[in-house]
C-alpha cells in the first residue's frame, strides 16, 4: 500500500522543497538584476548630465562678442573630444535675434560641417533645457541648451544667443550595457551557486528520511525487529513511537498465544475428565454416548478456533522471519520419536541456500508439523522432505510412499466440511489448519500424487532472502 503510494509520487517532499527554493532564487535574482541595473543607469545618467552642464557652463563663460558683433570664444574649451570630428561630444552657438535667427554661428570642431538642429523653442534666459535630438550620422544625442543675452560692446542692441552642448548617448549607454552584462553574469553565477546549495541542502537534509526508509525495509524483510540507527531529533519521537508500536504488537501476539494456550488447557482438562468419566460409565448409561459425542465435538471446535485465533494474531507481524532448517530438524526428531513404532525413514534433503520463511516460527512449525505428521501416518516406510527457493517464495514438498489419495479426495481433505465430519481424532483438522495458515501468509498448500507412490504435499510460503553475513 505504502509502496504503491511512494511509487506514484517519487520524492515528492524533495521536489516540493526544491521547487520552492528554485522559484525563490529566480525571483530574487531577477529583481536584483533589474534594480541594480536601473540604479547604475540613473547614476551614469546623472554623471552624463553633470558633465554636459560643466561643458555648458564653460562655454557660457568663454563666450564673448567681438567689437564687430561676431560671436567668439575667449579660449577654446578644454575637452579634446571637442576637437576630434564626430567624437560624440559637441557644442554649438545659435543666434536668436528676432530679425535674423541663425543656427550654428559657432560650432565645435567635432561637429565638422554638421549643424545641430535644436528645436526652435524660445526658452527663458538662463534656464537649462534638456532634450534628445538626432545628431551627425543619425546617432541619438543628449542635448542641454541655455539661452543667454549678451550686451554688445559696440553699443548695439543686446544679442540673444542659444548655447547647445550635446553628447552621443552611446557614451552613456556603453558603460550601462557593459555593467548590465557583468551584472547578469555575476547574478547568474550566484543563482547557479544557490541552486547547487539548495540541492545539497535538500539531499543532506532529507538523508535521515532515506535511512528511515532503509530501516523500515529491513523491518519489513525481517532483518531487524525494530527501527535501528541514529536519527535527528525531529524524527526520533516518530521512531520511538513506531518501535514501541512494534514491541507492543509483538507483545500482544505473545499474550494472545499464551492466552490461547491457557484457554486450551483450561478447557481441555475438564473435557478429558468428562470423556474419561463417560467411557468409564456402565454400558447401559444413556448419558455416556451423549457426553462422548459432545466432548469430541467440543474438542474439535476448540482446536479449530484456537489455532485460527492464534494464526490470525500473528500472520501480519512485521519483521518476523525464521530459518527452515532447525524447524524441520526439530519436527523430524519429534516424528521419529512419536512414530517410532512405524520404523519410518525420514529423509531431509540438504537445506543449504534455502531462504528463510517470512513469518513466525510457531506458525511454520504448525504447518510443517501437520503435513509431516500426516505423511508419517500414511507412509509405508519412507517420507522425504525437500525445500527450495521459488522466486520470492520458498516451497517445501513432503512425499510419502503410502497408498495416496484419489484426485477427488485431495481437494476434499482441504475443505472444512469434510473435516468437521471426521470422526477419527487428530486427523482432518490438521490439513485445514495448514491451509488456513498458508493462506494467511499469502501462500498455499496443495496435494498431488507423489513419485514415491503416496501423497506429495507442496507448501508454498513467502521467503526472506538470507543475508550473506
Amino acid at each position: 500500500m505504502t509502496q504503491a503510494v511512494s511509487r506514484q509520487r517519487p520524492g515528492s517532499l524533495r521536489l516540493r522543497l526544491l521547487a520552492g527554493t528554485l522559484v525563490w532564487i529566480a525571483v530574487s535574482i531577477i529583481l536584483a538584476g533589474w534594480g541594480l541595473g536601473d540604479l547604475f543607469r540613473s547614476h551614469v545618467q546623472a554623471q552624463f548630465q553633470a558633465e554636459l552642464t560643466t561643458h555648458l557652463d564653460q562655454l557660457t563663460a568663454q563666450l564673448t562678442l567681438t567689437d564687430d558683433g561676431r560671436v567668439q570664444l575667449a579660449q577654446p574649451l578644454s575637452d579634446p573630444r571637442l576637437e576630434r570630428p564626430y567624437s560624440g561630444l559637441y557644442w554649438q552657438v545659435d543666434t536668436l535675434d528676432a530679425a535674423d535667427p541663425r543656427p550654428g554661428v559657432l560650432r565645435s570642431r567635432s561637429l565638422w560641417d554638421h549643424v545641430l538642429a535644436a528645436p526652435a523653442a524660445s526658452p527663458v534666459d538662463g534656464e537649462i533645457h534638456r532634450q534628445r535630438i538626432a545628431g551627425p550620422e543619425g546617432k541619438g544625442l543628449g542635448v542641454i541648451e541655455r539661452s543667454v543675452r549678451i550686451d554688445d560692446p559696440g553699443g548695439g542692441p543686446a544679442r540673444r544667443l542659444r548655447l547647445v552642448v550635446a553628447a552621443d548617448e552611446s557614451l552613456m549607454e556603453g558603460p550601462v550595457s557593459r555593467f548590465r552584462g557583468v551584472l547578469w553574469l555575476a547574478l547568474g553565477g550566484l543563482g547557479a551557486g544557490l541552486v547547487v546549495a539548495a540541492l545539497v541542502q535538500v539531499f543532506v537534509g532529507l538523508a535521515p528520511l532515506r535511512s528511515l526508509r532503509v530501516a523500515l525495509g529491513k523491518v519489513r524483510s525481517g532483518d531487524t525487529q525494530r527501527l535501528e540507527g541514529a536519527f535527528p531529533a525531529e524524527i526520533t519521537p516518530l521512531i520511538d513511537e513506531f518501535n514501541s508500536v512494534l514491541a507492543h504488537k509483538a507483545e500482544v501476539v505473545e499474550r494472545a498465544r499464551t492466552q490461547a494456550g491457557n484457554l486450551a488447557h483450561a478447557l481441555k482438562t475438564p473435557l478429558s475428565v468428562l470423556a474419561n468419566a463417560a467411557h468409564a460409565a456402565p454400558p447401559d448409561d444413556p448419558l455416556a454416548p451423549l457426553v462422548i459425542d459432545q466432548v469430541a465435538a467440543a474438542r474439535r471446535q476448540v482446536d479449530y478456533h484456537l489455532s485460527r485465533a492464534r494464526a490470525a494474531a500473528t500472520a501480519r507481524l512485521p519483521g518476523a522471519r525464521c530459518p527452515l532448517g532447525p524447524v524441520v530438524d526439530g519436527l523430524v526428531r519429534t516424528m521419529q520419536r512419536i512414530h517410532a513404532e512405524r520404523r519410518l525413514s525420514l529423509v531431509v534433503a540438504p537445506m543449504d541456500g534455502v531462504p528463510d520463511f517470512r513469518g513466525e516460527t510457531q506458525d511454520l512449525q504448525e504447518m510443517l508439523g501437520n503435513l509431516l505428521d500426516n505423511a508419517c501416518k500414511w507412509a509405508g516406510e519412507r517420507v522425504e522432505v525437500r525445500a527450495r527457493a521459488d522466486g520470492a517464495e520458498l516451497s517445501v514438498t513432503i512425499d510419502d510412499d503410502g497408498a495416496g489419495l484419489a484426485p477427488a479426495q485431495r481437494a476434499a481433505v482441504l475443505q472444512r466440511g469434510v473435516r468437521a465430519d471426521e470422526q477419527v481424532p487428530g486427523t482432518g483438522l490438521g490439513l485445514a489448519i495448514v491451509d488456513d495458515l498458508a493462506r494467511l501468509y499469502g501462500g498455499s498448500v496443495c496435494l498431488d500424487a507423489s513419485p514415491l507412490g503416496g501423497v506429495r504435499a507442496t507448501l508454498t510460503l513467502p521467503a526472506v532472502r538470507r543475508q550473506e553475513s
Partner: protein
Amino acid sequence: MRILVVEDEPTLQAQLATALTAASHAVDCAGNGVDGHYMGESGAYDAVVLDLGLPGLDGISVLRKWRAAGRNMPVLILTARDGWHEKVAGIDAGADDYLTKPFHMEELLARLRALIRRAGGHASAELACGPLVVDTRNGRATVDGQALSLTGHEYRVLAYLIHHRDEVISRADLVEHIYAQDFDRDSNTVEVFIARLRKKLPPGLIETVRGLGYRLTTPP
C-alpha cells in the same frame, strides 16, 4: 509395571490412577511439579505420564531435570496445548511420546504399553519366552496357548520379568516395580508371588540366581 502419574487436576489424576491400576500397573501420583520431579528422580518407574501444565515446576522443566540426572524411563507427555512447537519442545526435552487432551484412556494405555515395550527393546506387544506368551495389550498370559489365571500382583511380577527377559532381577527391584510407593512393602511377599508363579509355569522358566535375584529365561 510401576507408573508415575504427574497431573494436577485431581479428578483426571484419579481417573488415570484407576485406569492404570485396572491395567495391572502399580501407580503413584503427584499433584505438582516439585513432588513429581522428586518422585521421578528417587523412585524406580517403568513409565511416567507427565502433564505439562503443572503448578510449582512445569512439566518440561521436570522432564529436563530427570534427563539431566540420567533418569531414562519412558515419559508420555499429556498436554492441552496442541501446537507443534509444544510437541517439539517436549520431545527435545526428552519425552518419548505425547498425547493431547482430551484423550481416550485406551489410547493412553496403548501408548504406555508401547513405550514400556520399546524401552525393553521389544518390537511386539506379545512378549514370549519359550512356551510362555504374555500379551501386554490385555494382560493375559498363556503357556502353549493355555491361558493362565493370575492375580494382579502375580501378573505384575511376570510382566516385569518378561520385559527384562534373560536379565537378573533383584528382589528389591521387583518390589520397586510392582508396588506403588505408599503400599506396605514386604520383600517376603515377592518370594510368595514367585513361588505361586513357578507352580503355574513350566518348570525351569523362572531361575533363582543365588544371592542376586531371579531370571526369566528359556529352559536349556
